[in-house]
């Protein structure tokens, strides 16, 4: 497509809107380096004391480890469960594949406040509230749809010829999958892992419903902290989370492609 000159009006208007879009993400950077004890702008001085404060807050540190363990385990299970599902939907294509694909991605249609409440009520009955298993089950419900989607899309664009050649040459199906299909899906697997990790690590609504007095995640602790006071410590954590998010976006861009993953 030939580039059409973009009018100055559009550049200016879009520029202002982009600034609006980035404002809350950008503003936390100067605030996180504030030397003040409360939120003030511009800060009266600069320091890294709020970054140090994170590590001296046992609640935040505990919550961080819970979130990390949860995100890692959620990612591994999303791949272990999502990959076979994607393989069935794209390669085996049993009757009703389309309907099943919709069914597996349906949890994303439900607003997280409704899903959170629904899980709260059920998990309370089984004593899963405030447990690691409860968090894990809730997070899997919302990471699996992403995993199935990204993996199915990748699998459907893989050339069949290589797998067929391996089969013709006598490789058993399982060895074709592990030695041909899986290596070719490396990029999609990396992208899925990055997304599943981030979705789990950032999840706050479901986690608020699941958390108990003994266990909670980093976003939940941040939410409670902001609810009570707006000191610059949350800004420091926010900067670290934004760096993590940016890294995930870079990984997805380099592997599955941003346009293919997010623009449908």
């Amino acid at each position: 497509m030939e580039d059409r000159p973009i009018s100055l009006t559009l550049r200016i208007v879009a520029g202002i809107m982009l600034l609006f879009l980035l404002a809350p993400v950008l503003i936390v950077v100067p605030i996180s380096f504030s030397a003040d004890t409360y939120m003030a702008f511009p800060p009266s001085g600069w320091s890294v004391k709020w970054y140090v404060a994170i590590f001296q807050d046992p609640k935040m540190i505990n919550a961080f480890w819970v979130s990390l363990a949860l995100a890692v385990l959620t990612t591994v299970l999303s791949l272990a469960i999502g990959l076979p599902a994607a393989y069935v939907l794209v390669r085996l294509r049993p009757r009703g594949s389309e309907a099943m694909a919709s069914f597996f991605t349906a949890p994303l249609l439900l607003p997280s406040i409704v899903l959170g409440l629904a899980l709260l009520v059920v998990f309370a009955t089984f004593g899963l509230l405030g447990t690691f298993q409860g968090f894990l089950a809730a997070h899997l419900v919302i990471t699996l749809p992403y995993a199935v989607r990204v993996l199915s899309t990748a699998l459907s664009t893989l050339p069949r010829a290589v797998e067929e050649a391996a089969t013709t040459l006598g490789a058993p199906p399982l060895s074709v999958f592990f030695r041909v299909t899986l290596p070719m899906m490396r990029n999609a697997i990396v992208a899925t892992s990055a997304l599943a990790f981030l979705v789990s690590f950032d999840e706050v609504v479901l986690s608020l419903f699941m958390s108990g007095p003994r266990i909670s995640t980093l976003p939940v602790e941040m939410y409670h902290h902001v609810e009570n006071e707006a000191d610059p410590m949350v800004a420091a954590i926010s900067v670290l989370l934004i760096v993590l998010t940016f890294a995930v976006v870079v990984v997805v861009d380099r592997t599955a492609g941003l346009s293919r993953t997010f623009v449908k």
Partner: protein
Amino acid sequence: MTAIAPTLEAAPARRVKIPLAVILLIPITLINLIGFVAPVINLLSFSFREVQATGAMTGGSSIASWVAIVTDPFYIELLVNSILTSLLIVVLTLVCSFPIALLLHRTTGFARTVLLFVVITPLLTSAVVRTYGWIALLLDGGVINSLLSLAGLPTLKLIFNSTGVVIGLTEILMPYMILSLLAGFRRLDPRVEEAALTLGANPFQTFWRIIVPLTLPGVALGSLLCFVLAVSSFITPKLLGGGRVFLLATEIYDQAMVTLNWPLASTLAIMILIVFGGALFLYLRALRAIA
């Protein structure tokens, strides 16, 4: 929404081995049944449970929760207020997102990648982080008011009221709108615009009579998505509303976690799903009208 359905390209079907397919699908089906289907059905039955004034359930059934939300003026206002606020947010999100989507559509190469980064990084950034950013901007002693008073202007009350909630949610939903619009812009052929300009239309006419009508399906999809997300969002209204803005989603959380009236919370949650049904119905009708 519909955008998350995996693309199943028509591949020549291999002979289907049903048992293998069934085995491979067992884990995901179990997760979906336990973590999605059963809880939602249970929610529906919960909305008909009987509760005492203390919030304890008696085990009997009752339509009290449903009667409460259709007769109590507080809940009627809550519903109307949620819908109107969400509609306002959708309109503002659309106005703010359209120029960015149009710019993205017309950009290619490296500049496009940079723009996609700028749109997708906020999308994936936690709602708590972005809402905190808005608190820093909107607070009485925050960035905007500090700059206003430095300029000698009167300060504004921008937070802990619906103004703050509308500003914050508009920004938070923009990436969803931009990506929906971008998907819809595929219909926009630059040659059609050029033809209009060549035939003497000014840029203003070209925008309103060519670009806008052709992009309406994307607008409809983005509006549906953002409306649904606005009605059900809870972190941002809770933190930016400071407990003074009452919306459906914040009330569900309060009933579930503070008042512990789960039947009423369930009824309100189903109310949200009914509102969604209505929005989806209007979307499908709008789509038929503009197709």
